[in-house]
């Protein structure tokens, strides 16, 4: 009962409305803080997970840009063969993406049309099977639903592969399966096939071009990337770590900046809230505190009582903020993912242990700083003058 923490608990329970208000305020602020921390790294972590899940650990491009954002690799077939022969490389997959119209009976859908060479596959089959021979493709769920296609059906593909509007004649493909493709976006159709079939649909058979090469190393991605760069000085090889680094330097920094600003504001709000409530509480009890000091309570003890009150408010509010923050994160993630062009598998809020650790540390620091002023009041309380004033008042 008499330990400072228990004593502080009694002091808080004594003012239930004020204490509840403080705890709820900290819970709301803590939830926002947690969400800001999850948001600051969420997209990067989500991107990292997506890259890792595809099974490749090195991407090779023709320029110094992110894969798919720069010039094509003109000799992708030769480059694949050369890179595949390197000792640290297990497999090479050339990937090319074009625009296409998909037609089935009277239904039509604009789609991303992806061609890949070799294995591993970049998609996950949901129904049906992988394309086994020429003239077969997989569709994503949205394309299959829009065109009402099932595995075994035939779909007509008109690819748009150049900078001009001229399109080669449409080509018929058999739907081998329905698959989940990486970087699929909601309500956007995608189709994927062998690179050779895509080239034929583009009217340029044997062109051997690719947006980028996806490489699986034998275990040391950095060494494989270095070997690729050494073997083909005209190409750039990026490990997943390097790609993530580039992403972080790019547009994703906005989220970190926004979350930093909002986190700072929320912490400041929490600081003010707790400081005001504790200061009011301490000021109302100055007579009692002076009496305790007169009875022999040490300065350290009465200061510790105030610190414990802050710790209890922030601790209880912080614990409540975790489920609240997680619910809020799921809700906000759903809203943000409605933005156009966001892949289905990408998330803005990603749970990571480090965010929870930082959340706890920030709240602990908030409790400490917020308690500083009321602790100072208590520490410097003139005992005799306070007792005299209490009688006069």
């Amino acid at each position, binding site marked *: *009962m*008499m330990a400072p923490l228990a004593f502080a608990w*009694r*002091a808080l*329970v*004594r003012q239930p409305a004020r204490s509840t208000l403080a705890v709820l305020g900290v819970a709301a602020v803590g939830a926002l803080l947690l969400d800001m921390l999850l948001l600051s790294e969420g997209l990067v972590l989500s991107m990292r997970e997506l890259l890792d899940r595809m099974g490749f650990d090195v991407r090779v491009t023709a320029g110094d840009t992110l894969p798919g954002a720069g010039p094509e690799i003109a000799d992708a077939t030769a480059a694949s063969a050369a890179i595949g022969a390197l000792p640290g490389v297990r497999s090479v997959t050339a990937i090319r993406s074009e625009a296409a119209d998909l037609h089935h009976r009277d239904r039509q859908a604009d789609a991303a049309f992806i061609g890949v060479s070799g294995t591993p596959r970049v998609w996950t089959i949901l129904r049906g099977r992988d394309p086994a021979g020429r003239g077969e493709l997989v569709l994503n769920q949205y394309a299959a639903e829009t065109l009402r296609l099932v595995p075994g059906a035939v779909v007509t593909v008109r690819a748009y592969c150049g900078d001009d509007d001229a399109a080669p004649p449409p080509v018929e493909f058999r739907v081998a399966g329905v698959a989940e493709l990486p970087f699929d976006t909601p309500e956007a159709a995608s189709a994927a096939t062998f690179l050779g079939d895509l080239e034929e649909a583009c009217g340029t058979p044997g062109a051997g071009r690719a947006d980028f090469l996806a490489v699986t190393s034998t275990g040391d991605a950095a060494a494989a990337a270095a070997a690729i760069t050494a073997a083909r000085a005209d190409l750039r090889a990026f490990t997943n770590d390097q790609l993530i680094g580039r992403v972080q330097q790019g547009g994703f920094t906005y989220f970190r900046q926004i979350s930093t600003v909002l986190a700072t504001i929320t912490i400041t709000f929490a600081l003010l809230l707790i400081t005001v409530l504790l200061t009011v509480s301490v000021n109302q009890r100055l*007579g*009692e505190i*002076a*009496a*305790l*000091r*007169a*009875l*022999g*309570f*040490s*300065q*350290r*003890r009465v200061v510790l009582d105030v610190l414990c009150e802050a710790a209890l408010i922030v601790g209880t509010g912080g614990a409540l903020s975790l489920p609240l923050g997680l619910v809020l994160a799921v809700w906000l993630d759903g809203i943000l993912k409605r933005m156009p062009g966001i892949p289905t598998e990408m998330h803005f809020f990603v749970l990571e242990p480090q965010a929870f650790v930082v959340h706890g540390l920030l709240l602990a620091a908030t409790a400490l700083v917020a308690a500083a002023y009321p602790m100072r009041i208590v520490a410097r309380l003139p*005992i*005799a003058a306070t*007792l*005299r004033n*209490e*009688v006069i008042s």
Partner: protein
Amino acid sequence: MNHVVGSVNDTIVAADRITRVFPMPAGPVVAVRDVTLSIAPGEHIAIRGPSGCGKSTLLHMLGCVDAPSSGSLVFEGHDVAGLNDRARSLLRLRHIGFVFQRFFLLPMLTAAENVELPQAEAGVPAHARRRRSRELLEYVGLGARADHRPSQLSGGEMQRVAIARALANRPRLLLADEPTGELDQATGEHVAALLDRVNADGTALVVVTHDPVLAGRARRVLTMRDGRIEGEVRQ
């Protein structure tokens, strides 16, 4: 604690020409001026005088919650001026009991818990302080109200709990600042009688009061005016 300058046995506290000056915007105010006073074990002293004459300031200095601006104050052989805040706190905790006009019981604690507080601060084990609290509440006639909170007690009962709290660590000196100031006459009588009993049981008692009846119970009555002790009556 250092600065031992006197005998522990013959005097609890000795003030030699102590003065307390409060700096104010309109100029310094001398609340206590050149007061020399010693309190022996078991004494019963009343300090009386008009409002603002310096009674409470003197009491606070004797209780080591305020420091003289000049002069020397020796408590149980320790020069109080040489003690830091921690040492003074410890001295108050172990040797001095305070009773306040406004009781200052902690409202979130029961009567027994209020009495336990100073013992807990002094490091008394839980079972010992519970036993001591019950004994003290029995002593002040509130054994049956041990589990009541201050809001469930009358003014007189609260002051009796405050007296029990002040006695919790067996102080040699009990200081009471207007202990009956907030009580009606009959209740004040009960509290005054209790303080007499505390003194009779061996605790030195200094009471600051306006009340001539309460002051009349003391064996030494000091009258203050303008910060000085104007007269002393022994009875």
